[in-house]
């Protein structure tokens, strides 16, 4: 991998930071002086500029060959010992994709927030946080090394916390923010532990490499002759083996080849491998060297190989950030934040950081089939688990939240079976359609005057046509209808799962496929359920008006809006394109302002066409750009990932099954919920069959996971401390009291000795100190000269000790 300097790269994260600083420091004054326009003018413009720079960088990268990365180093950060962390940004093909998604979707959501947050007293605060989030997320994505990535990792966690509890006067929302923060902390501990293990483990491999007889430079330049050269030519890095070192002329030839391959700053690739590193590409280089890799993989600790352990810890970090089992519980609660935040942070960008982490570290995960199996299994379990919870939720945002957890599970399944590019592909398409869904739900919530319960919606298709249409497009995409974006990515995931040969348990691929397919069925069902409940049938809510508003209890909340939308929203001049005359009265839901609908339209369009980036070769009417684009990044891991080969018929069959699943879920939802006419759900509930009721109750209450966590971790902690207190009070205290009694006896004896013999001495000393203090008090005269004498005396002492005294 050769590095091309690209000096403007740092602007991509820096511009949003600038916006955050401006609005964070002066926002309240700007808002008072210039109104909300003054706030969003900077807050929206800067992310767009950064998106433009990202696009420019992306094009530059695309033009400069497959094995390159754009690079800028701002300054050395921690260069101590083997630690080589710089504040440096790298844009390779993987981070380029992420960077584009983050900047582009992020900027769109900024635009959307202009209208959504209108009238909120904390307008400036919101945009400052949002910009800060963009900065942190872009730092995470573009980071050159683990430590800088961790800065971004913590930064997005902080911003997530700040934005979830944005309406902090509402205790429930503040608590949701804290929950997210605490749960993320558990994951972050895993991240740090994994990082330490990796850093330490890689360093350890040089100490006693079991198979290595030569000093390191020989290993680099030694090789398998022509095979190694071609390998080096394709991978852009030098691969040697532990075999014999070549005769001198051949080595010279190799050296010239090597220096011919790498150019620019990539010349460092020919430099000896560092002992260990926190830079991604350096670790990758080390692990591509067979001798170092074998030494690393053969290290074991606590019965597990070190690489597995490091991967599992890092994956724990990923589950925290990406809301996977066991750490998913914070994400549904995170819906307490404003809806643009849910769209940006908790659907499109931040929660995908875990997937990005695993993909970024593909060279590490690929070495441990066990860790990959864990990733895939956890992902599949989460996908099904969250999807079933999503079936019965009534809150539109909760449905989307569980859907997000489920889709993230799909991504982890993809990276877990070693199909890294597919995971990233689904990440991208998911960013489009899930952002569109969330923003659509925000538009609905705004239109329905802060109503989030789908049972009180319905029939909004007529009233909010743009929202409804884009929501439908995204539903089609997420459910995997043919030719929509979700179809390509999800189908590819299912196919990769089916054909994987990488799992440690037998025929795991098939079972994971079944789980994922059921999850996909659920997905299709609950998404269309939400669509039909919201947009078709009759409007079931009470007409909301101004009086309903005034009597709404939470608007009394000392001027701070606690609803999930600004109170003053319907004073805004909304669009005149309404065909429904009734909609002009404020009693019925109304379409949102243009700044929001335009964003919805763009995202909806992307949700439709985004999938054409990665058309599978089986269909083949377009080349698979996405896989091709990411191939140089993930190519190095391909040896370690195994696939079973099936005839094309299987692939066609699975694709057909996916289509059937999508249609089946949608059809069931249509049957049950279209116009809310079907009596079946109600009858099923009323049937009183204990099995049905029990299952429904179990799922409706989200499998009681929150309760179990509360019982186990919170009550468990309390119980443990109670038990410890009991031990403390009864046993320890008894012992202590006994010891105390004995001590008291000894003390009395000693006290006598003390009074008679020691006190005399002590009093002497004490009196001496008092007298000395009285004298020393004179030195604190307040006169400058006295102090200067002290300084001079100290300096002279030092100089004498250093130079004049012959030791």
């Amino acid at each position, binding site marked *: 991998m050769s590095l091309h300097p690209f000096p403007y790269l740092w602007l991509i994260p820096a511009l949003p930071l600038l916006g955050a600083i401006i609005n964070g420091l002066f926002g309240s004054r700007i808002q008072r002086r210039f109104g909300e326009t003054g706030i969003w003018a900077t807050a929206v413009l800067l992310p767009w500029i950064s998106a433009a720079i990202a696009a420019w960088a992306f094009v530059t990268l695309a033009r400069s060959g497959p094995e390159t990365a754009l690079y800028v180093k701002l*300054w050395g950060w921690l260069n101590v010992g083997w630690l080589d962390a710089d504040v440096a940004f790298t844009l390779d093909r993987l981070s380029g994709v992420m960077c584009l998604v983050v900047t582009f979707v992020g900027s769109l959501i900024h635009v959307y927030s202009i209208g959504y947050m209108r009238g909120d007293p904390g307008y400036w605060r919101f945009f400052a946080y949002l910009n800060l989030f963009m900065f942190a997320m872009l730092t995470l994505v573009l980071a050159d090394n683990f430590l800088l990535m961790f800065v971004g990792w913590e930064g997005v966690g902080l911003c997530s916390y700040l934005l979830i509890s944005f309406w902090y006067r509402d205790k429930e929302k503040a608590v949701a923010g804290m929950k997210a923060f605490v749960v993320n902390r558990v994951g972050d501990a895993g991240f740090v532990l994994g990082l330490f293990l990796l850093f330490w483990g890689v360093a350890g491999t040089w100490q006693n490499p079991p198979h290595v007889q030569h000093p390191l430079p020989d290993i680099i330049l030694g090789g398998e002759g022509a095979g190694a050269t071609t390998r080096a030519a394709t991978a852009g890095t030098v691969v040697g083996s532990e075999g014999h070192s070549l005769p001198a002329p051949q080595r010279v030839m190799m050296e010239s080849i090597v220096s011919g391959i790498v150019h620019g700053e990539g010349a460092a690739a020919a430099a000896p491998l560092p002992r260990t590193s926190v830079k991604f590409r350096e670790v990758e280089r080390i692990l591509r060297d067979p001798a170092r890799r074998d030494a690393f993989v053969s290290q074991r600790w606590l019965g597990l190989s070190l690489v597995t352990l490091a991967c599992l810890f890092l994956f724990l970090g990923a589950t925290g950030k990406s809301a996977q089992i066991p750490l998913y519980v914070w994400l549904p609660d995170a819906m307490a934040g404003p809806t643009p935040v849910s769209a940006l942070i908790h659907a499109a960008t931040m929660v995908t950081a875990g997937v990005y982490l695993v993909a970024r570290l593909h060279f590490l995960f690929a070495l441990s089939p066990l860790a990959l199996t864990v990733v895939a299994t956890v992902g599949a379990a989460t996908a099904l688990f969250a999807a079933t919870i999503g079936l019965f939720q009534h809150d539109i945002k909760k449905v989307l939240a569980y859907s997000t957890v489920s889709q993230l599970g799909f991504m982890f399944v993809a990276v877990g079976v070693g199909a890294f590019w597919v995971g990233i592909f689904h990440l991208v398409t998911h960013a489009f359609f899930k952002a569109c869904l969330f923003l659509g739900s925000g538009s609905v919530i705004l239109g329905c005057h802060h109503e989030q319960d789908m049972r009180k919606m319905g029939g909004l298709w007529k009233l909010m046509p743009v929202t409804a249409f884009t929501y439908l497009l995204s539903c089609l995409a997420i459910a995997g209808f043919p030719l929509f974006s979700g179809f390509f990515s999800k189908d590819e995931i299912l196919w990769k799962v089916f054909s994987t040969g990488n799992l440690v348990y037998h025929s795991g691929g098939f079972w994971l496929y079944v789980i994922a397919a059921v999850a996909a069925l659920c997905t299709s069902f609950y998404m269309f359920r939400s669509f039909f409940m919201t947009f078709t049938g009759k409007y079931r809510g009470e007409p909301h008006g101004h009086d309903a508003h005034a009597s709404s209890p939470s608007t009394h909340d000392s001027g701070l809006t606690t609803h999930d939308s600004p109170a003053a929203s319907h004073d805004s001049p909304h669009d005149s394109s309404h065909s429904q005359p009734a909609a002009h009265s404020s009693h019925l839901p109304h379409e949102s302002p243009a700044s929001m609908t335009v964003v919805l339209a763009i995202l909806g369009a992307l949700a439709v066409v985004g999938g054409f980036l990665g058309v599978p070769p089986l269909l083949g009417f377009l080349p698979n750009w996405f896989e091709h684009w990411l191939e140089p990044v993930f190519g190095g891991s391909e040896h370690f990932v195994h696939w079973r080969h099936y005839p094309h018929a299987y692939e066609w069959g699975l694709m057909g099954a996916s289509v059937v699943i999508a249609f089946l879920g949608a059809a069931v939802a249509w049957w049950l919920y279209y116009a809310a006419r079907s009596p079946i759900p109600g009858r099923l509930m009323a049937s009183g069959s204990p099995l049905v009721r029990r299952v429904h109750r179990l799922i409706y209450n989200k499998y009681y996971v929150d309760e179990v966590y509360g019982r186990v971790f919170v009550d468990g902690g309390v119980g443990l401390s109670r038990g410890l207190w009991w031990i403390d009070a009864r046993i320890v205290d008894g012992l202590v009291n006994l010891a105390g009694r004995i001590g008291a006896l000894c003390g009395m004896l000693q006290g006598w000795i003390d009074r008679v013999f020691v006190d005399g001495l002590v009093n002497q000393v004490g009196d001496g100190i008092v007298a000395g203090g009285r004298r020393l008090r004179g030195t604190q005269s307040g006169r400058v*000269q006295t102090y200067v004498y002290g300084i*001079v005396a100290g300096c*002279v002492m030092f*100089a*004498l000790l250093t*130079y004049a005294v012959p030791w």
Partner: protein
Amino acid sequence: MTTSLAGAVVFYALAALAVAGAAWVAFARNIVHSAFALLATFFGVAGLYAFLSADLVAVIQLLVYVGGILILILFAVMLTSRISEVKVSNRSAGFGLGLLVLLGTIGVMAAVALRVPWGKAPPATPEPMAPGVGDALLGPYVLPFEVVSVLLLAALIGAVTLARGRKRIAASGTPGAAAPDPVPERKTKDEERKTPDGEVQP
């Protein structure tokens, strides 16, 4: 690296100027004399910089020290003392101990200077150093450079804030008598001997 006789003469002359000025600052009985002696020292040191072919530093020394700091000091002297009163303006205390410090310091410094084997730089060509210093300031040292500029700004604001005094001075009027302030006089040791102007009465 040998120095020509003329060079040595120049060096000793400059060093003598600096040292003599410093001594005069230390021992002069009138504070105004001290201030002007300081001028001589600054010139001498600037000459030494030039002798070390540190042209930029020499010029800056003249600009900042002579043009800025010394003027400030003179202003302060004028503003705060009855300069004609030698005893008031420049009294000294602890002369003997001070002399001890003086000699001790010179001794220690001389010992260190003569004992330590100082390294030698490669002989440098006598060319202007300003471009190099400028590159360094905007290259590797750009962060300290910026920090220093912020520090200067802070010092500027701090000085203005301090020197302006409290707001109630201005609020309580008497614009003509702005300098003597309405804060009650401290009961200093020789308060009884002072007029409100701070002048010592015979």
